[in-house]
């Protein structure tokens, strides 16, 4: 480059920089006017669409549920149902009729009041529209009819007793949409929550603005921005350098030492519904044998795995039940103790004394490759050769989840109370156990709540005894915030990060 051209290049660089600086200042801001308080929250799972009723994937509900959209009842951070749009509700003695009183103050962001009719419109759409995901429409399986008795009274009649139904209604299935906005839900969410959807910068961030006319007690900030990071290190450094006000769930527990400075950061460790499951393809000849599945359960040292993979944060569960569900059974945790000797004996019993070779196809999610490395090592010790194949999550969804082309896989199941997935023979595990399906259905339809809980506990035990999978651990909810931020829930009981009560002293 000759000197003259270099000067020209430098000059143009300076001009560009100056323009960028000018763009940074805010000409619309009057002196003395307080700067809007916007919280920046680091997150990992970006939504794939904006309509929680038609988009599968937990990212959409994570941002929109309870924040932009509301349900009749909500799940608090202790995994308990609380009133939201329904200020109170009663259940008939035969457990078939639910009567909800809609809060007369409740209104959508558009100003339209939330009436029983609006709920009926939303629920009937979920029951009849073909584009609705099975997770949402499935919530209405036990429902016979939904009627508006008057403006504020909604009556839902079930055709069979279902103790789990109301719980389902606290999730994406139970969202009450603004009936005037149903046509444009893909681009413009229309709900009654404390936030309004503002914008989505695909691949980067989603902005929510605080709803100025919220009918309840809203947040004490002006908005939140979810910033998505593909790389956990980038998110952690953004937090350390002050670009973020919170990390919604830390994915490298080893990085906790970055946030040890208590004058700057607050760290909480809570529970989630995310069971990290080593799934077996029950169509595989070897894995269809109970002894082989039990051998794998005996061969894996889950305590050591949790220490290596997730820094001993999180819980051991032993079945498809998180510790804060009422039918959690602590005795299942050690049902298969770490015992390589017994694993070898079981394999010999099943006719695999000379060894066995299995393909472990995993998504490249934070827990995948690391868990696989530990499992490969521990299974090798009992004579099981594991070939690990890593897939991008989209490829995993297609090849493993949809086409069931795998022997073993690892994925976190984050939906609340999802033990019923083992009752579905078409699910990607190919696990066909009519007895279990019956046990779960019977429990759900049991006459009393106690019998329901007992029945679910029995189902969980059946799963463990049949070694239907190997439940590696329950994902913890590690939230990091600055000391200025309050109101972010400790536990992630629902699919949502509920920011209704969020505030900052900034």
């Amino acid at each position, binding site marked *: 480059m000759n000197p003259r051209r270099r000067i020209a290049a430098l000059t143009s660089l300076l001009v560009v920089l100056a323009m960028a600086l000018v763009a940074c200042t805010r000409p619309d801001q009057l002196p003395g006017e307080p700067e809007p308080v916007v919280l920046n929250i680091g997150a990992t799972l970006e939504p794939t669409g904006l309509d929680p009723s038609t988009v599968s994937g937990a990212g959409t509900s994570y941002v929109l549920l309870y924040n932009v959209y509301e349900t009749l009842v909500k799940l608090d951070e202790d995994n308990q149902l609380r009133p939201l749009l329904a200020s109170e509700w009663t259940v008939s003695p035969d457990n078939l009729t639910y009567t909800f009183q809609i809060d007369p103050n409740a209104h959508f962001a558009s100003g339209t009041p939330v009436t029983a009719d609006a709920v009926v419109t939303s629920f009937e759409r979920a029951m009849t529209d073909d584009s609705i995901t099975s997770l949402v429409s499935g919530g209405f399986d036990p429902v016979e009819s939904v009627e508006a008795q008057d403006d504020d009274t909604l009556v839902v009649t079930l055709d069979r007793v279902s103790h789990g139904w109301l719980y389902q209604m606290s999730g994406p299935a139970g969202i009450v949409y603004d009936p005037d906005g149903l046509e444009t839900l893909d681009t413009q969410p229309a709900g009654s929550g404390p936030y309004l959807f503002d914008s989505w910068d695909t691949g980067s961030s989603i902005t929510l603005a605080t709803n100025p006319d919220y009918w309840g007690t809203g947040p004490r900030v002006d908005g939140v921005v979810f910033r998505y990071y593909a790389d956990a290190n980038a998110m952690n450094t953004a937090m350390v350098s002050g670009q973020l006000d919170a990390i919604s769930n830390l994915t490298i527990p*080893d990085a906790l030492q970055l946030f040890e400075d208590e004058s700057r950061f607050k760290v909480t460790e809570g529970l989630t519904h995310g069971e990290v499951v080593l799934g077996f393809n029950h169509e595989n000849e070897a894995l269809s044998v109970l002894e082989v599945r039990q051998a794998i359960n005996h061969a894996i040292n889950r305590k050591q795995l949790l220490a290596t993979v997730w820094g001993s944060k999180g819980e051991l569960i032993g079945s498809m039940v998180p510790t804060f569900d009422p039918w959690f059974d602590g005795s299942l945790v050690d049902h298969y103790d770490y015992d390589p000797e017994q694993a070898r004996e079981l394999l010999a019993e099943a006719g695999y004394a000379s060894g066995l070779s299995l393909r472990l196809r995993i998504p490249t999610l934070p827990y995948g490759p690391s868990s696989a*490395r530990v499992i490969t090592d521990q299974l090798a010790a009992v004579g099981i050769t594991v070939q*690990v194949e890593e897939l991008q999550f989209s490829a995993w969804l297609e090849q493993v989840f949809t086409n069931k082309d795998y022997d073993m896989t690892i994925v976190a199941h984050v939906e609340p109370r999802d033990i019923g997935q083992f009752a579905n023979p078409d699910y990607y595990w190919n696990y066909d156990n009519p007895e279990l399906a019956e046990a779960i259905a019977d429990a759900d339809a049991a006459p009393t709540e106690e019998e329901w809980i007992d029945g679910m506990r029995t189902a969980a035990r059946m799963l463990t005894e049949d070694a239907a999978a190997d439940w590696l651990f329950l994902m913890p909810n590690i939230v990091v915030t600055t000391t200025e931020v309050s109101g972010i829930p400790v536990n992630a009981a629902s699919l949502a990060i509920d920011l209704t009560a969020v505030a900052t002293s900034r």
Partner: protein
Amino acid sequence: MKHSSLAVGGLLIGLIVATAVVGLFWMPFDPNALVGPRLQAPGWPHVLGTDAFGGDIASRIIDGAKRCLLIGVVSVLGAGVVGIPVGVVAGMSRSWFGDVLARAADILYGFPALLLAILFAAALGGSTWTAMAAIAIATVPAFVRIARAATMQVMGLGFVEAAQLSGTPTFQVALRHVLPNIAPVLGVQASVSVGLAILAEAGLSYLGLGSGQDEPTWGRMLREAQDQLFNAPLIALWPGLAIALATLGFNLLGDGLRDFLDPRLREIA
């Protein structure tokens, strides 16, 4: 100092080849086994420490050496086998055909190895072989260009014209007169390309588009080390150093070869 880059490059490559050869017969630990407590500092018996899982880093570096060499050499060989004949034909042809070949190679130049690897990984699943194929294909145009340019230069020389005028078949001319004369240039290109291929493989493995979990490569080790960057930065240092030294070695070797083989350049230097 004469030929210093050739000596240093040769020494570095020799070191890596020796490591790879030793790794074929002996290794301190099983590179895939979790042999000790995780995140151990360098010491004894884990000379370079252990990684985030408790694997022996030194063993994984040694195991990775042979894989990196294999990927580098095989992908460059593949690229050469395809690229050199195409380049020679393009250089010898005096018709539009040569131009078409050259432009086709230019078009291929527009596809970075990364894009090809993503395509392959999507279609076939990421593995050492898809990474190798992607790097090989992306390296082909460089060989076509170099071979063509060198061939065109040789074609203008008297003895080639003499051979052609005396009725030697074109194929014989290419084999006897052109190839031996462009071989030094291609050798230099090959050496530099191996270095670039090792770097490209590291990049692909780092992005998860390369070799699998039970086949440690240096790029893969870097990726695994990334999560520990703040509490155990040394884990990232070793594979990073290995990649840097290998790439430097092949580049120096290429430079040295060029100085050594091209007398005109030698005089200037």
